[in-house]
């Protein structure tokens, strides 16, 4: 009988204690962050979407080689000796036209391994993490500042230059075989005008 009454009392009492706790929580400010309006501050060195500063890129392909999932595709064309490609922010002279610099974020694993080898620190992680798309192809980002046509043009230029050089070399070799002649300077002038 005593046990029975004790049980009853314990039942009522514990329920009241529980109710007190939940009632207190009713007035504790919620921990919820209303996401699209309010965002959690990101920690330093957070790894999110990559960005490539093409002004600094020298097209060295080191990032693409470092990538464990091969999500970076880089194609370069050598600049003509007469082209002015500008210099990077740390003073290096650029020598390659980067005709294609694509990163497929559907593949990217955000490991940051591509960031470290970059000699000019032009590829880095930003704090943008909301870039979901409806189509997978939309996650294919093109960073190259040159359009496809321009890229083609650069390629053609280089091929032409190369061909001319070859031709010159062949001609020079031929001439050497016959007799030395000062033809070389004229042809470089020609290619320069074509490059511009």
């Amino acid at each position: 009988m005593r046990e029975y009454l004790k049980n009853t009392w314990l039942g009522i009492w514990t329920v009241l204690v529980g109710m007190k706790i939940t009632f207190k929580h009713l007035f504790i400010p919620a921990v919820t962050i209303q996401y699209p309006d309010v965002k959690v501050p990101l920690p330093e060195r957070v790894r999110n979407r990559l960005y490539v500063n093409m002004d600094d890129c020298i097209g060295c392909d080191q990032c693409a080689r470092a990538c464990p999932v091969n999500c970076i595709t880089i194609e370069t064309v050598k600049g003509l000796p007469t082209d002015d490609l500008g210099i990077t922010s740390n003073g290096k002279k650029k020598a390659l036209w980067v005709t294609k610099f694509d990163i497929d974020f559907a593949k990217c694993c955000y490991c940051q391994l591509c960031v470290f080898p970059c000699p000019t620190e032009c590829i880095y992680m930003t704090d943008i993490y909301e870039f979901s798309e409806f189509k997978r192809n939309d996650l294919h980002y093109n960073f190259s500042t040159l359009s496809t046509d321009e890229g083609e043009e650069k390629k053609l230029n280089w091929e032409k230059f190369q061909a001319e050089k070859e031709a010159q070399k062949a001609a020079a070799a031929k001439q050497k075989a016959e007799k030395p002649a000062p033809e070389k300077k004229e042809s470089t002038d020609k290619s320069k005008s074509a490059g511009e």
Partner: protein
Amino acid sequence: MFEFLSDLFGSQIIAAFISAALPLVFIVPFVIFAVWLERKVSAHMQDRLGPMRVGWHGWLQTIADFFKLLQKEDIVASDTDKKFFNVAPYIVFAGTYLVFAALPFSSAYIGTSLDIGLFYIIAVSGLVVIGILMAGWASNNKYSLYGAMRSAAQIVSYEIPTAIVILSIVMFTGTLSLSEISDNQTAYFWNWYIFGGPDWGLTKFLVLPFMIIGFLILYISTLAEVNRTPFDMPEAESELVAGYHTEYSGIKFSMFFLAEYGNMFAVSAIVSVIFFGGYQSPIGYLGDALAANWLIPFEQLFWFAAKGIFFVFVQMWLRWTLPRVRVDQLMTLCWKYLIPYSIVNLIIIGIITLI
């Protein structure tokens, strides 16, 4: 109200239909509000926010959900017992609605002012059990059947302490009429039956502790009757998917929902009528002070709704406080604790009434 309407329309039939449809005007907005309240209360008790997007603090969320439910495809599985499967949600809702017919919303509106209102309410709530059994069986799903069986066992068991407590109140008050019980507790809150009723004297103080015990028993057993946590065995999500309404979708599911929340209000209203003065104001009426008699019924409606919603809130509070009990604990609580206590309570209140 019925006389007024029949005078207004000149026809008893139209007046009867309108008078019968009036509780619906209360139930639907109440359910919409209660679902929102449930979500907000549960969220804040768990330090969350709950719905925040649709309207101010999400108050339009349930309306949006309601329209979503209306538009949903009404799926009927191929092996169900179609006839009973389709009719069951409406029977469950009818059971709830019948209870509302006898609730005294205010002194001006009571669906039917029955002399045996309390008895009637106990009787018609049995219809809900049949509807639940029908839904569970017709779904042809083992979880549904489990839920229905548990629900029936639970409701039938917990009807006993409810009935005994109500019987002790009937002995004390000498009436079964809900409006008469409400009118007995008029004026101020110390006239409520939980504080021993309107008569001053030795009886009032003798009966007070037993009234509180009676209130606790009634509240616990009605909580079990409407299948709320901690007694939500029939629809235990973690065990039975959704119990007896697993197979339902769309409008039929919303019928179950409407019935569940309507029932919550109905039992809260019964508790408030029996122990907390029903539609009577605890602090006197503004209409009396301003000498505006037409104001009083509206105030009474306000107090009735406020008390009902407060007890619904306590139900939610308990839901987010206590975990679900096991089936054997459920039965132990009913048969070994509530029923003996309520019988002892009945005897003591009977003796006090006699002296």
